[in-house]
């Protein structure tokens, strides 16, 4: 069909002006900068991991993982420390994750916006920033001495739990708050109780965010030395090798983080690869515990329908 040419020359419409070109260059510059920063984070990380693995290679073996240290830590493996770390991480998260998540649900879903709850929220935020050595002293006073748990896995785990609790509460609240209010309104308007709403809609749609928060605390718990040094971890312990139930919760235990510290600062003539091998094991343990949670999270995400 016939078509009149518009008044201006259509060939020149929407074409780049000098100013647009400048903007596009700025855009590319910005994107390049952000990309570079991402690389600046990824490359050192890869280098660190590669370097660790390379240095640790001579010592890493199944035997290294499953035998106790011998000859004043210079020979043998790290079994007692590895198992200790697993006990501490799992037990402390078993305490802090349920309490933290449920408390966060209360604070986000039930609590009214009054002065008391505002103070509680403020306290949570501030507690999340307390240095771990302070938690260590609290744990020593409260669990080891006052509650007479002595220095034990239980006391150390409780201390670690107290340390991670505020962070878990904060991250869980964040995840819950990201569920749109309109979803809750839809539930309330068919007569669902708050608990039914939480159960059917709020938790399923925030669980992956909640788990992310918890997962981040796994590495923090496994890496901390200060809180367990006073409350349950020891420099050396000999336990039955290969037995997953070698520790009782009233026992003292070794831990990878502290073992690494000991080996690098207290033990002379230790093999060069030893600290690296311990570090790799520590990383591996954290990754393994995280991987379980991540697989669970991915599975949950695929079920999320929006």
């Amino acid at each position, binding site marked *: 069909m016939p*078509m009149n040419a518009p008044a201006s020359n259509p060939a020149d419409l*929407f074409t780049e*002006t000098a100013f647009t070109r400048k903007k596009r260059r700025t855009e590319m510059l910005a994107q390049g900068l952000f990309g570079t920063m991402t690389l600046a984070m990824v490359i050192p990380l890869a280098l660190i991991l590669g370097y660790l693995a390379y240095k640790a290679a001579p010592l890493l073996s199944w035997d290294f993982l499953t035998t106790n240290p011998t000859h004043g830590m210079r020979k043998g493996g790290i079994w007692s420390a590895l198992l200790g770390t697993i006990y501490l991480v799992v037990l402390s998260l078993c305490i802090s994750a349920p309490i933290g998540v449920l408390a966060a649900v209360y604070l986000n879903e039930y609590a009214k916006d009054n002065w008391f709850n505002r103070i509680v929220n403020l306290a949570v935020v501030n507690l999340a920033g307390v240095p771990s050595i302070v938690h260590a002293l609290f744990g020593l006073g409260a669990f080891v001495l006052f509650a007479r748990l002595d220095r034990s896995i239980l006391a150390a785990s409780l201390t670690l739990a107290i340390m991670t609790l505020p962070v878990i509460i904060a991250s869980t609240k964040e995840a819950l708050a990201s569920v749109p209010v309109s979803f809750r309104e839809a539930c309330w308007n068919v007569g669902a109780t708050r608990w039914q709403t939480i159960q059917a809609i709020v938790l399923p749609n925030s669980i992956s965010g909640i788990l992310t928060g918890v997962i981040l605390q796994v590495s923090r718990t496994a890496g901390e030395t200060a809180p367990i040094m006073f409350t349950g971890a020891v420099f050396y312990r000999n336990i039955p090798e290969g037995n997953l139930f070698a520790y009782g919760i009233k026992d003292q235990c070794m831990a990878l983080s502290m073992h690494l510290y000991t080996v690098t600062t207290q033990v002379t003539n230790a093999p060069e690869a030893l600290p690296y091998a311990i570090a790799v094991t520590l990383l591996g343990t954290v990754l393994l515990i995280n991987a379980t949670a991540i697989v669970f999270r991915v599975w949950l995400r695929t079920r999320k329908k929006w």
Partner: protein
Amino acid sequence: MNPATLDPTLGASEVQIGITTRDLCLWYAKFQALHNINVDIKKGIITSLIGPSGCGKTTLLRCFNRVNERYGNVTTQGEIKLLGKNIYDPDVSLIELRKSVGMVFQRPNPLPLSVYENVVFGLRIHDEKGLKKSELDDAVEKALTEVGLWSDLKDRLDAKAITLQLEQQQKLCIARLLPLKPEIVLMDEPCSALDVNGTRAIEELMFKLKGRYTIVIVTHNMAQARRCSDECIFMLLGQLIEHSRTAEMFVTPKFPKTAEYIEGRYG
């Protein structure tokens, strides 16, 4: 072939064409949302786009400023010309294109800024030389006057835009486009969040803007299409069924499907 036809009585040789598409197809991943759309939308008039939910009205609208490309896995095929210029030409700048093709959304989406900053937002981001305060002030007064908000808001230009009434918010969203002097204004169900008075206000505004801008409005409201538009396009399942003058389409629709939809037999 597509049953789409353009009424030959429209006198196409007299008018200029605002938007032309030829064999426009669009896929979201594997799902084909638009099938061979051929349309010539005239410059300076109001064209309404009707059809049941999910028939591809929003998708078609979003093709006209190529914003579909931002929505993930989208493949487009065919030709789209705006004012005679193929917008898929390599020398087309998306920045300039979107500056010339404004969009108004279903839910008013004022930016979380003051009323004043909302209106001058477009000017500021396309401002090369550093506009003077007086120029910005003038632009705000002009745009707000044009959409009929000036007398209400001239003393509250610092108010947060999201605190306005919905109707005012939607007018503000239109005012936000005007300082950029767009060629085409796309409106995606601009009144569906508004009450009767809000709807009337937006419709009156459209009449005022008609002539200077080519307006394409998606609507679910048959009465609105009838009241406001000069021409009407009926879509069904990603196909363009009928495009004719509104007065004709509502009196003597050419296709039974159109007639049934207009009569409200399905929707």
